[in-house]
């Protein structure tokens, strides 16, 4: 792909080759970097999941030591969250936000570059942990003390990886907020912005408000490890539970950071393929806002079993259930958008429809977990694993697939291979359910999470899950092939690409030129 200039700048010297990507200040280049980074990390963390499922295929220990198994679950979680879902969404934001609001680029192109180029450093740290004495961190992605305080060198490296990823997220968020608030084309009022832009604006606020808190929490871990403080040690008047409070004050908004941009993508795609405007646009905006605000007062639902006064349990139970209301508004609006639409089911729409159904299931199992007495039974079982994989795999990840298929023609100028796309969809959606649905039963029957061995009676469901897992893993290679094919060639995409597509990005040629909207468009 050559760097085509729509308008030629005599004074801009764009380096080529590797240097183009390292020094780039172009939002499309940076978006592409984010997306490739996320895809590579997806296969890294995915192969860890394959190892986990291989070990769990049978009871007893097959392939690895228990410590290594724990390292795998921990790093799988950390990398999937911080290295795959978040960078992928930021990649979408980089590509799409300027195109959707008619801005020439992001507000701070250099800082944008830094936000990306901090991520490979963090990735080197995280993956490098496996090669240090003692191996990678093994206490779970939640990094709870006292385990986390007792580990070796990789624990320190992990702390700094979190710091660096946090810095990247904060700079990225400041950039996105400033771009959206200050760079909209004339006439693009806030309430005309595409839903994807709205959801990212709110996500960016969540990031700025919670990433520093996580940084504080891991800093306290570091000082407890090396500088003699007793934040999380009762002997000095501290409390390990305090870490959980601080962590989940970040952690619950974090899960909304992982899903709000998904809501945005789905809200772009469904109207296009239903050929109807989004039902209840304003209510979507307000629902997203309320979800974000409520997400700050529900963290205790991760801590029902650590000991909490009854009043606290009740508060967190009801506040958690309250979040289901704005979430329900969204699901209702998506369904109402499809109602009596003239729908077609190209791959992006298939993923979007699957999202609506399966994310809702994940939401429902969340509601089950929100009920304190029930959660006391289910906490730390496979039921929780089933819950968060329904919201994260068939939720966040499917929305990323949907968005990638939806915008690939605009990015590359070529239609992707629809047959392969559909194959990828059907294999993913079926195997995903084979993989995660039985986990509900395993959890209800009492199988604990993060343990490499299990009692005999759990064997069958685990084998079903593992088979689903292997099919799911293999199917993702199809996605890689589809993307590579679309980048290299294929049927020429039209400007509008999709018959029902609306919005500024579809007024541009496909592929979108290197510089766009240098003169702001007028939005009526």
């Amino acid at each position: 792909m050559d760097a085509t200039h729509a308008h030629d700048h005599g004074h801009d010297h764009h380096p080529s080759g590797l240097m183009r990507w390292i020094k780039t200040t172009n939002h499309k280049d940076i978006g592409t970097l984010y997306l490739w980074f996320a895809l590579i990390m997806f296969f890294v963390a995915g192969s860890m999941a394959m190892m986990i499922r291989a070990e769990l295929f049978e009871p007893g220990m097959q392939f690895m030591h228990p410590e290594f198994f724990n390292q795998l679950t921990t790093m799988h979680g950390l990398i999937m969250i911080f290295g795959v879902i978040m960078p992928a969404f930021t990649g979408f934001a980089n590509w799409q936000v300027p195109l959707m609001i008619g801005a020439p680029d992001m507000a701070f192109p250099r800082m944008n570059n830094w936000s990306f180029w901090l991520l490979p450093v963090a990735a080197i740290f995280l993956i490098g942990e496996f090669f240090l004495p003692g191996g990678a961190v093994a206490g779970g992605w939640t990094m709870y003390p006292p385990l986390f305080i007792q580990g070796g060198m990789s624990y320190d490296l992990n702390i700094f990886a979190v710091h660096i990823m946090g810095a990247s997220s904060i700079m990225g968020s400041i950039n996105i907020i400033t771009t959206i608030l200050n760079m909209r084309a004339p006439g693009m009022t806030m309430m005309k912005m595409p839903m994807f832009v709205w959801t990212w604006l709110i996500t960016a606020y969540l990031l700025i408000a919670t990433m520093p808190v996580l940084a504080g929490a891991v800093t306290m871990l570091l000082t407890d490890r090396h500088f003699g403080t007793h934040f999380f040690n009762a002997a000095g008047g501290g409390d390990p539970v305090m870490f959980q409070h601080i962590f989940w004050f970040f952690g619950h908004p974090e899960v909304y950071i992982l899903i709000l941009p998904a809501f945005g993508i789905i809200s772009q795609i469904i109207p296009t393929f239903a050929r109807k405007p989004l039902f209840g646009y304003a209510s979507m905006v307000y629902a997203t806002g309320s979800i974000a605000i409520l997400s700050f007062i529900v963290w205790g639902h991760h801590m029902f079993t650590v000991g909490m006064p009854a009043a606290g349990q009740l508060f967190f139970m009801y506040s958690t259930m309250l979040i289901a209301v704005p979430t329900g508004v969204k699901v209702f609006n998506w369904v109402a958008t499809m109602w009596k639409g003239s729908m077609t089911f190209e791959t992006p729409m298939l993923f979007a429809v699957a999202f609506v159904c399966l994310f809702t299931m994940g939401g429902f199992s969340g509601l089950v977990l929100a009920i304190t007495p029930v959660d006391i039974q289910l906490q730390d079982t496979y039921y929780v694993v089933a819950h968060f994989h329904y919201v994260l795999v068939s939720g966040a990840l499917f929305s990323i697939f949907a968005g990638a298929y939806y915008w690939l023609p605009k990015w590359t100028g070529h239609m992707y291979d629809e047959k392969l796309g559909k194959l990828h969809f059907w294999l993913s959606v079926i195997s995903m359910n084979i993989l995660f649905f039985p986990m509900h039963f395993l959890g209800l029957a009492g199988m604990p999470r993060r343990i490499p061995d299990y009692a005999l009676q759990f064997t069958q469901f685990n084998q079903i899950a593992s088979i689903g897992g292997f099919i799911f893993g293999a199917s993702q290679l199809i996605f890689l092939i589809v993307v590579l094919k679309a980048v290299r060639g294929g049927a020429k995409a039209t400007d509008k690409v999709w018959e029902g597509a609306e919005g500024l990005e579809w007024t541009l040629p496909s592929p979108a030129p290197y510089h766009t909207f240098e003169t702001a468009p007028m939005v009526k």
Partner: protein
Amino acid sequence: METHQDRYYLAPPSHWPIVGSIALMLLAFGFVMDLNGMGNGKLVMLAGAGVLLFMLFGWFGTVIRESEAGKYNDQVDLSFRWSMSWFIFSEVMFFAAFFGALFYTRTISVPGLGSGETMLQLWPHYTATWPTAGPGLASKFTPMEAWGIPAINTLLLLTSGLTVTWAHWGLKKNNRTQLVLGLILTVALGMCFLGLQAYEYHEAYTKLGLTLGAGVYGATFFMLTGFHGFHVTVGTIMLIVILFRSMAGHFKPSHHFAFEAVSWYWHFVDVVWLLLFVVVYWL
């Protein structure tokens, strides 16, 4: 076609970000090596710090040159304002984590250790009063008295908030002497603050037995005041930079975002100190 000035300035490709990434990588990895007793950790950290300084000079230098060349129009100026405001907000949230820890230990974990079954089973002789080094440590310490150095420091910082505003008035009236004088005073007050705090830390460690290891009191005391002190240091460095820029004739009465950003930051540091003074030293 519009003129250059009407356009939102978009930076050309730049190598500074990757230099920054390498700097942070060296710094963090060197620190990890050092913490784990590997020989060359400090050296790697030093290299990282050097690269970081090089990057900061280069990057900010570029921004200053672009600004002085008049490349930033009003819209760019507004972008800077939004970003600085939200950056300060993120800093507020960083401090919130440590204030939260102080609140939690004072109202939940310490009283919890001194009452009920926990006390009876584990530390039957523990009386939970604040300040405390916790029930299980032998450490004895004297807490920091609020109405000595900390009160003087409060006065210093409050005054420095006034002097920086006075300098700002000077800038707006294009009274350069008032601008430079105000900044010099502010820098001096900031440095006095830091000097007194260093003295206070020295006293704490040598005379009062108050250390990072002195239970949750020591931990929250040093983390809160320490991170605040770090922010004062950064703020003072930023003040020195704009002082030199003022002396070099930078900034116009109508266009001086860098000055305002530094003064916002300085006021933020001031407000954090007031909170610190009340909840860490006084109450």
